[in-house]
């Protein structure tokens, strides 16, 4: 018996108490395969300028988004192409900023599907109909509607820190008709470039920034 006990003591004294703990994964946010260093750099710049990482306020004006991203329209949209399974397009009526029931459901489902993601982007647009300034305000109102609904529906203290709003109006990174094939709130209804741009593109970004 003394041999057994001495053996246990020898092993105990020789063991490193932290070794076993180091073998266990540590809880962390998600890091998806599409999070290339380039994408993360862009997301960080956009996120920082849009008030996610600092205290400079929330939301980006169209020109700001263009400047911080330093991207062309197509490059900007291509940022979101890998998010086919994560993104949702919330559609609005013409010249309106209110969410209809389907849009509200889509926003809630998207928010609940956070998993390990760190940033929730709301990129609102307007179709080219009407004046440019008005469309800028319209897209800002649409982005704000999404945020307001999230705040009203979820008592999540992370909302203020996790949601980034971008409103692009009609003059930057308009969506092409191919986005009609994505998950959108008015599935089954006709969809052209006009309809798909009366929208807010919402998605969790699974990158550890």
């Amino acid at each position, binding site marked *: 018996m003394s041999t*057994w006990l001495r053996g246990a003591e020898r092993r105990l004294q020789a063991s490193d108490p932290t070794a076993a703990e180091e073998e266990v994964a*540590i*809880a962390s946010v998600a890091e998806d395969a599409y999070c290339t260093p380039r994408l993360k750099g862009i997301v960080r710049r956009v996120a920082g300028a849009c008030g996610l990482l600092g205290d400079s306020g929330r939301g980006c004006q169209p020109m700001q988004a263009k400047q911080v991203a330093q991207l062309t329209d197509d490059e900007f949209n291509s940022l979101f192409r890998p998010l086919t399974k994560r993104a949702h397009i919330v559609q609005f009526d013409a010249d309106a900023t209110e969410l209809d029931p389907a849009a509200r459901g889509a926003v809630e489902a998207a928010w609940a599907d956070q998993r390990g993601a760190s940033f929730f982007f709301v990129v609102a647009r307007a179709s080219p109909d009407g004046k440019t300034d008005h469309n800028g305000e319209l897209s800002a109102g649409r982005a704000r509607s999404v945020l307001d609904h999230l705040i009203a529906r979820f008592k999540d203290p992370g909302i203020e820190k996790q949601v980034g709003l971008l409103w692009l109006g009609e003059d930057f990174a308009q969506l092409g008709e191919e986005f009609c094939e994505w998950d959108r709130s008015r599935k089954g209804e006709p969809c052209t470039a006009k309809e798909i741009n009366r929208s807010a593109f919402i998605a969790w970004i699974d990158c550890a920034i």
Partner: protein
Amino acid sequence: MGRFDEFEAFDDDPPEVDHDTVGLGALARPVRLPLIVAGIAALAGAIFAATSTADFTAHLDRQVHAIHCSVMPGADAQMGESGCRTVMLSPYSSWFRSSYWGGIPVAVFALAVFAFLAYRAFHLAVKGQPRRSEVFFLLAGTGLPCLMSALFGYLAATKVGATCTVCVGMYFASGFAFAGALVAFLLTRKAPTPDPRAVRGFALGFLEGCGFVAVVFLAYLAFMPEVKAEKGRGPAGCGTLVEAADPGGVFIDLAVRPGATPSIELLDPLCPACRAFDGRLAASGLGDKLSQRAVLFPLDSSCNWMVKSSLHPGACAVTEAMLCAPAEGAKVLEWAFAHQEDLTAMARADEAALRKKIAQEFPGVASCLGSPQVKNKIVQSLRWAVANALPVLTPQLFVNGKRMCDEDTDLGLEYTLARMLEARK
């Protein structure tokens, strides 16, 4: 310890009287046979007890080892879950757990008792002239492991819910030893005159037995491993919470006791280790000194992005139920622990069936299950673990913000928790 001669000296019968031979010559051999049976049974019991002691002591290095779980002496040890491991980790496998890390295994006492009984049985068999009082002492002695076998068998069946095969070996050994001693006793002729030294002989035999136990017990104490408290080990804990607050309102009250030491348990409702830990904590009696809250961390990939596969299918659904009705959380957890295997099997086959079952059992959560709001709550619960950079494992216990080291959550639970509680005073 050797008292062969003393027992000879206590024989107050006339020297020419031979109990085995005076008119009973034919019984001399039959008495020896059951004594040998009792001795062999006691020896087998000692081997089982030694095996169990060896397995227990191996774990005093705070690591996980293979353990023996067979009634066949010499069978290979096994890793992984088994009834023997469950019983070994249960609070009933050792005594004095609050005083010594792991406590003193019951198997150590069993080893001493079986060894003593084997010695007494073989001594009487070799002696060939057992007096009735001596055989009665052996019979009484073999009654002790029988009683203990009944007690521990009952505890295993009712409290632990698992059976230790090596322990079953000891139960059978106890039974055979008792049976052998009983037969020997029945075959031993009553002395024609009362034996005035029987009581003294019984008392000395008892002391001799106590001596056996004491020597083994003290030897165990003398060689028990000890470590100094240091960071990352024992009561010093393995880290502290950096974000102990609950801004998302995801804590589940398990047993909130005003004035008691606050504790948080990170758990998965379908995790067998969590259920076992919960049982050990309750049995330790120290749980009453904690104001217990839980943070849910289902190891199920359907909602937890930190695990690649579902270790515990259905854990997300049960977690949803607990978060849907936090006031009922403890009740849901108790139900999930009680039906853990069934619920896991049901979820593995069809998670929708599990959700239906939960809704039937707790109608109040039916409309909430699967809703975006409760899914968001799960995310917040998981992100609490992220904010504290916790290891992806369950269970974890935080006592007053200090994390109990994983190596202390089973055999060393009482010892470590008692000191962590003491440190708070």
